[in-house]
C-alpha cells in the first residue's frame, strides 16, 4: 500500500517540476481518479490549472451539482454543457468499442476547445494502473488513455496517479481531504452511463440507467460494495396494469473487490433485491423486468461493455 502523505508530497513536487510556470488543463469526471489528479495538480499549479468538467449527459444523478460543490475552491473550474453533442454523435451506434471511441473523440473535441482557450501547454490525466493494463491487454479501451494526446499538441502529459490501484487512489483522496468523493462515489466508468446501456445510446435508455443506478447505490449502501450498478441490457415482455409492456430489462450488479482486477458478485438478501426491483419497475413505466447478475470477474468484467 502506498504511503499517502509522502505520495502527495512527491506527486505535487513532480507536477511542479514538470509543468513549471506553464499552464495545464485537466478533465474532471467527478470520479475519484480525476478528482485526485486535479487536486494534486491544483496544489502544484494553483491558478495555472484549468479544470474542465464536461457534462456529457451520461453522468450519474446529481453528479454535476456535486462536482460544482466539491471543487468550488478552484477558481478556474469550467463546466461545459455538451449533452446534445454527445447524443447526436452516438446515434445509431451499437458496437461497444465504437461507442467508447466516439465518446473519447467527443471528449477530445470539447477539450481541445477548452484547452486552446485556456492556452494550456500540459495535459493532466487521472489514468490509474488498471486502465493501462486493460488498454494494453486489449480487453477494453479507456478513453483517458488513447486519443487525446494525438490531437492536441500538448508539450507534455502528466499522469500523477498512473502507478496506483484504486484502493491506493482512495487513500490519497482521503489524505487530500476529498472524503466526500471517496465516501459517495463508487468507481464509475469514463464513458459514463453509455456503457450501462447495451446497444444504442438513447436518452430514454440512459434515463432508465441513471435512475436504476441511483436506486441500486442507495439500496446497497449497507452492503458496502466496491461497485454497485444497474444496466439496461435489452427488451422483454411484461404486464403492467393489465397492459402488455414491451419494456427494458435492467440488470443489477453488485461486487466486492480490492482493486478492480478481480471481483466477487455479492450475495444479497431477497428482500433487498425485491425492494430494488419494485423501485425500478415502479418508477420507470418502460421497465418490464429486473434481474440480478451473479457472475464473478473473471469470467465477466464488472461493467457490461
Amino acid at each position, binding site marked *: 500500500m502506498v504511503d499517502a502523505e509522502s505520495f502527495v508530497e512527491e506527486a505535487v513536487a513532480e507536477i511542479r517540476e514538470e509543468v513549471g510556470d506553464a499552464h495545464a488543463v485537466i478533465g474532471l469526471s467527478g470520479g475519484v481518479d480525476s478528482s485526485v489528479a486535479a487536486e494534486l495538480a491544483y496544489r502544484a499549479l494553483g491558478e495555472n490549472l484549468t479544470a474542465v468538467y464536461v457534462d456529457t449527459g451520461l453522468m450519474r444523478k446529481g453528479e454535476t451539482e456535486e462536482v460544482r460543490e466539491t471543487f468550488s475552491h478552484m477558481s478556474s473550474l469550467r463546466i461545459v454543457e455538451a449533452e446534445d453533442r454527445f447524443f447526436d454523435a452516438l446515434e445509431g451506434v451499437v458496437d461497444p468499442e465504437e461507442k467508447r471511441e466516439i465518446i473519447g473523440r467527443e471528449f477530445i473535441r470539447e477539450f481541445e476547445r477548452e484547452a486552446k482557450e485556456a492556452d494550456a501547454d500540459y495535459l493532466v490525466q487521472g489514468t490509474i494502473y488498471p486502465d493501462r493494463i486493460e488498454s494494453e491487454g486489449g480487453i477494453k479501451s479507456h478513453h483517458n488513455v488513447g486519443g487525446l494526446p494525438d490531437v492536441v499538441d500538448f508539450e507534455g502529459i502528466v499522469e500523477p496517479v498512473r502507478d496506483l490501484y484504486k484502493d491506493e487512489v482512495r487513500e490519497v483522496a482521503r489524505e487530500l481531504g476529498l472524503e466526500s468523493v471517496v465516501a459517495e462515489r463508487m468507481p464509475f466508468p469514463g464513458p459514463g452511463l453509455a456503457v450501462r446501456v447495451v446497444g444504442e445510446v438513447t436518452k430514454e435508455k440512459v434515463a432508465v440507467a441513471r435512475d436504476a443506478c441511483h436506486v441500486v447505490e442507495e439500496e446497497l449502501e449497507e452492503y458496502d460494495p466496491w461497485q454497485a450498478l444497474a444496466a439496461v441490457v435489452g427488451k422483454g415482455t411484461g404486464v403492467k396494469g393489465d397492459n402488455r409492456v414491451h419494456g427494458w430489462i435492467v440488470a443489477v450488479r453488485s461486487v466486492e473487490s*480490492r482493486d478492480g482486477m*478481480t471481483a466477487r458478485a455479492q450475495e444479497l438478501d431477497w428482500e433487498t433485491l425485491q425492494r430494488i426491483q419494485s423501485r425500478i419497475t415502479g418508477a420507470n413505466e418502460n421497465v418490464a423486468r429486473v434481474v440480478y447478475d451473479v457472475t464473478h470477474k473473471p*469470467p465477466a468484467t464488472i461493467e457490461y461493455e
Partner: protein
Amino acid sequence: MRVVVIDNHGQFTHLEGRALRDAGVDQEIVDNDTPPEEIDADGLVLSGGPDMDRIGRCAEYLELDVPVLGICLGMQVMADQLDGRVGSGEYGGYADVTVEILDEADPLVGSLAPETRVWASHADEVKEVPDGFTHTATSDVCGIEAMSDADRDLYGVQWHPEVAHTERGQEVFENFIARCRS
C-alpha cells in the same frame, strides 16, 4: 533479496510485483524477451498470459539456476518446456475454486492444507507433470492445480495467488520467497 517477475502479457502481472513488494522484497517486472544474462535475481516469477506463443525467452530462464514460480500460463510453460504436457481443460477454471492440497510437506503450497479457496482464470491446464515433479494440488475443475520440484526449486500454480480474492495468496509468495532465501 530480489525477485524478478517475467511479464508474459498477463492481466495480473503488476499484482505479482505488488505482492512481492508487500512481502518486503525488491522486485522488478521485466519483458519476457529480456536476455537471460541481464537478469539479476534470487528468484523468478513467470507471470500468466494469454498465449503460449507469446512466452518470449521463458524457456531460457528455467536454466538460470534460481527458484522459479510459474503462475497460470507460467506453470504451463514450465510443463511444456520440460517433459510434461499441456492441453485444454474440459471445464474452464474461472473465479472461485476450492483447491485440495495433496502434499502437506510441499514447500510452496503445503502450508495451505487441507484446502484453500482461490481465484482462477484459465482454459488450458497441465495434463502431465514433468519428470521430477510432484503433483501437489487438485480441484474439481482442474486435475493439476499445482506442481513442485523441490530439488530444482521449480514450482507452479494454476491459480492466481496475486489477486485479492485468493484467500491465502500472499502466503504462497512468502513460501516462495523462503525458498529464494535458502
